């Protein structure tokens, strides 16, 4: 589900006025991408769901307690809270240093028109990417998900990461390069 900039501003305005229906609408809009973001960071479906629900509740409480003057977009606020919660989650589970994504990642090839071989190919591609992404540096993985999976703008990513637009562009470039190198190394090893 996509939303226009004006619509998003209207939604944020309503939420600032503690409009709970607007907040539930925001949940419908952003739950998928937030879940995806968290899932790629923590690597577990259950943990991603728990954290995702915690993000929305914490965001609502934050809105009630604060005037939301600093945040221009709701999306940026949600991602920031998600990042903080993930950091807390890491602190609590120090033992788990490396993330490995669940075997059953929930990938569903919905398009029935696709041929079986094409569907299999797609699923393989995704699985390879899924396995390679956790090997990336945390900040690289983060920007790749934000930019190329969740399709956030550079401006939005810069706001979430508290970086300048220029720094964010550089980070994305480096992250993409690192991912490509990982995939090439993997190919060489397979040969």
């Amino acid at each position: 589900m996509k939303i226009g900039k004006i619509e998003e501003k209207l939604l944020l305005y309503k939420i600032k006025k503690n409009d709970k229906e607007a907040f539930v609408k925001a949940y419908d809009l952003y739950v998928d991408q937030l879940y995806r973001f968290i899932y790629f960071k923590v690597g577990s479906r259950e943990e991603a769901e728990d954290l995702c629900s915690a993000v929305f509740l914490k965001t609502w409480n934050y809105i009630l307690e604060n005037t939301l003057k600093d945040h221009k977009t709701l999306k940026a606020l949600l991602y920031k809270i998600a990042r903080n919660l993930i950091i807390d989650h890491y602190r609590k589970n120090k033992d788990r240093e490396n993330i490995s994504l669940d075997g059953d990642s929930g990938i569903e090839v919905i398009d029935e028109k696709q041929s079986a071989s094409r569907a299999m190919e797609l699923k393989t591609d995704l699985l390879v990417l899924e396995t390679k992404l956790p090997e990336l540096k945390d900040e690289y993985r983060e920007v790749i998900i934000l930019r190329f999976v969740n399709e956030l703008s550079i401006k939005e990513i810069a706001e979430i990461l508290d970086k300048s637009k220029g720094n964010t562009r550089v980070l994305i470039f480096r992250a993409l390069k690192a991912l490509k190198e990982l995939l090439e190394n993997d190919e060489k090893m397979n040969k």
Partner: protein
Amino acid sequence: MTIYNRMNDKDLLKKLNNLKTIKPDDNFKKNYRELLYAQISAGATVNKSESNLRIIWESIMPGKVFINMVKPVWITSLASVLILVIGVGGVYASKNSKPGDSLYIAKIISEKAQFVMTFNEKDKAKLGLEFATNRAKEITQVLEESKESEDKKGAKVEQLSQDFKKEISQVKNRLTTIKKAENKNNQNKEEEPEVFGANLGKDDQRMEISEPVKPAAKQEILPEVKLELAAPVIATTTEGSLNSPDKALEEAEKMLDEKNYDGAIDKIEEAKQIINQESENLEPVKGEVKGVSETATSTN
């Protein structure tokens, strides 16, 4: 064939974008949606939904910001308008006030302000005459209207007469300094205006002297018209000599001493007129008028 063989940037981005298919479980979404609604309903105050148009208007021009922006502008403009109205009204109301009235001070202050705001010496002299006229009028007002005792009236009249004389003496001083400055200027620019004026005068003279036997009707009309034009100018050249405003002022002073206040006012008016004519004569147009007067006198 592995994915790496056919991989380029575009493919990689496309495949990354395909990770969008990773979504939370529908049951989780639905259940948590209800739970979230229940959780936020428990703590939050219920707010009515607002119309989008209203929200857009408020975000473009937030009411408080608008009011805050406009507030000081309004207050200052209102205050300045109020001050202006009170000031103008006060001055207007004080115009006919006499010593002892509450607005008399406003009148004096406005006179002083006028005086300070005037920079031309001649205008200052004219203002001084106006103020002297005001004092003379005030004396008549005090004598006619006031119901006070004769002693008090006498004191007020005495004070006003002194003020009148003070104003007159100041005007006199000012006029002498103006005349001195004019004389200096005339000495410096002696040639230019005379040549200019003489030429104009001669042209008219030649016309009449060279053709004296021209049709009688024309000749009769011309002197009449010219005489009419010349009449006030002759008066200025005879009466309007350098000392005449001073003379008028001296006469005004004398009349005031004789308690002929209306006469004094008339004399001041006369002095004012003379000053006005003098200042007009100083302008370049003067040459033409002078020329006409010369022809008129020559025809006579």
